[in-house]
């Protein structure tokens, strides 16, 4: 029984949330409890089946290959679970689980919640599909599944702001996915295959061609847009604040990370560093990464809307991750992957704290807030921990990943970029402390005297995330090793080819 589940685990991880997204509208209309349970079981089931793979993948260093329909690669679609996929898949399912728990109370006042939970499950299935697939066209399909549910979730409350943001989000994001599709078409035209391992094998055989560079540019455009890379970031500060807060946490936590994941897969697994390094492509990623962190950070400073500020801060942190990918040394990629993990946790925490304010007070305008620390101690603590972690202050988790990125920057001779990265961290600390002081300290406005702390269902995910921030900060070695093994998996091109094609 267990053995059978282990064998089917990669596909089950995608199918379980997909199944829930159909079961919720079918069974969950009458009774809230059925709907909520099904929505809870989706991510929980995925975590359960994925955790069966932890032992062989992380400890054994294996890649689990799942052949859909039993077709031997390179024919048919196959799923590949390596350390990077597994790490991100568990992260995505875990965050979805927390977002679902948070939504029970937060979304209570809205109607159409059956559709809401169904969309959340669909979003999660799309993310897991992108992360686990070993086929490039399949990646595009899952990218669209994820994106379409994300648009619908942004527009979910159908206010003026939501509708406009969702439209902008969808138009720009569709251009991004079309860019990815053109890149895939160019690769297919050159090699005649869509399987990632087969592509990795055939690209060196075809040899140098300007078409490959051309395809790479389209991938950078498409995945860069998904990852909110400057100058393709303009949709994010509208879309992420407009979405309901648990969805903002998911969007900033994992959805934008899929862009970076796609880029890393294309650069390191399909092309291989040596192939990409011929052009100044990695330098471009590095430069755009630095630009992203600077623009995001500077724009975050001048915001008055708390969720908009967090959205710009997300852009800034995506810059750090792109910075790591652009340097492309082992340490830099490890730092980038570790930062993906850390940023997902702390940004989800921050968005959930902002959600408490929206839920209890109903405003996102920070200038109308003040002195809330007395009324909402846990939320205040969460915001403080998240802010300090994101600025890279020890002993929180962000410190370690940022430290790795700085060291990697100096070691690889990109001192200037590393100095900018450190400087932006200082600025990040500055604005987070200022906003913390504005919201939670100082004088409590008269109309806020009746404000209470968040309900338990919303506090639980916040407390879990606070503990994770501190725990990873205190015991970074475990997670560094995980990121290290993910880096080894993504850089080991020949191993990838061998384990898929046999």
């Amino acid at each position, binding site marked *: 029984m267990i053995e059978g589940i282990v064998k089917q685990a990669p596909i089950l991880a995608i199918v379980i949330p997909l199944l829930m997204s159909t079961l919720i509208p079918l069974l969950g209309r009458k009774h809230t409890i059925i709907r909520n349970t099904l929505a809870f079981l989706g991510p929980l089931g995925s975590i359960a089946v994925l955790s069966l793979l932890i032992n062989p993948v992380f400890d054994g260093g294996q890649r689990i290959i799942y052949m859909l329909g039993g077709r031997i690669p390179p024919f048919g679609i196959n799923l590949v679970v390596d350390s990077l996929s597994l790490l991100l898949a568990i992260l995505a399912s875990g965050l979805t689980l927390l977002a679902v728990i948070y939504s029970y109370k937060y979304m209570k006042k809205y109607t159409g919640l059956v559709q809401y939970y169904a969309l959340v499950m669909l979003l999660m299935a799309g993310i897991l599909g992108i992360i686990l697939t070993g086929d490039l066209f399949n990646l595009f399909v899952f990218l*669209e599944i994820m994106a379409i549910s994300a648009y619908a979730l942004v527009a979910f409350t159908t206010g003026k702001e939501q509708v406009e943001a969702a439209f902008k989000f969808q138009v720009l994001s569709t251009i991004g996915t079309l860019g990815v599709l053109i890149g895939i078409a160019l690769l297919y035209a050159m090699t005649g295959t869509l399987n990632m391992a087969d592509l990795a094998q055939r690209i060196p055989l075809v040899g140098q061609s300007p078409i490959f560079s051309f395809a790479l540019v389209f991938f950078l455009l498409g995945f860069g847009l998904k990852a909110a890379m400057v100058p393709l970031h303009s949709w994010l500060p509208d879309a992420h604040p407009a979405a309901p807060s648990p969805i903002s946490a998911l969007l900033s936590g994992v959805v934008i990370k899929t862009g970076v994941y796609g880029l890393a897969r294309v650069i390191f697994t399909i092309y291989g560093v040596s192939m990409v390094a011929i052009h100044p492509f990695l330098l471009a990623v590095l430069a755009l990464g630095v630009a992203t962190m600077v623009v995001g950070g500077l724009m975050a400073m001048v915001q008055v809307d708390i969720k908009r500020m967090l959205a710009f801060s997300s852009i800034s942190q995506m810059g750090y991750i792109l910075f790591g990918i652009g340097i492309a040394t082992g340490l830099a990629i490890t730092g980038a992957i570790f930062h993906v993990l850390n940023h997902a946790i702390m940004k989800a925490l921050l968005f959930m704290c902002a959600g408490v304010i929206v839920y209890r007070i109903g405003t996102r305008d920070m200038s109308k807030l003040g002195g809330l620390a007395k009324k909402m101690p846990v939320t205040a603590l969460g915001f403080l921990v998240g802010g300090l972690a994101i600025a890279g202050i020890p002993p929180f988790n962000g410190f370690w990943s940022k430290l790795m990125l700085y060291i990697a920057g100096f070691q690889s001779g990109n001192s200037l970029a590393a100095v900018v990265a450190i400087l932006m961290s200082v600025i990040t600390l500055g604005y987070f402390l200022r906003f913390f002081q504005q919201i939670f300290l100082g004088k409590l406005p008269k109309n806020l005297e009746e404000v209470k702390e968040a309900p338990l269902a919303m506090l639980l995910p916040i407390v879990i995330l606070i503990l994770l921030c501190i725990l990873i900060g205190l015991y970074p070695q475990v997670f560094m090793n995980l990121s290290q093994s993910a880096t080894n998996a993504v850089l080991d091109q020949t191993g990838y080819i061998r384990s898929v094609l046999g």
Partner: protein
Amino acid sequence: MIANLNYVMAAVIFTVGLYAVLVKRDLIKIIIGIGFMEYGVNLFWISLGYRTGGTAPIITPGEVSHTASWVPQTTLVDPIPQALVLTAIVIGLGTTVLLIAIAVRAYQRYGTFDIQKMRELKE
């Protein structure tokens, strides 16, 4: 030139769509532009699979001896891009429907399809 005409057309259709998305202020025209871009990419995909003088890749039972070394007698077009484009068209339908749904909502909220006016109304 003639042989590459479909690639040129794909690029032209894509660019027309991109122009509409970037320049037009009407939501519906932007949606049409997105549709153009999608079909430009689809045409590109289909062109990749085309072989001059090729026939449909359908193999009848008498024709094939089930050995690995079997080579078709006639040129066949590449069926994979066709299957992929079919998928892309279906996805395109989904995105278009959602875009139109959002645009209709926007019209209900703002009373206009004009992006510029929406921005003014929001303030």
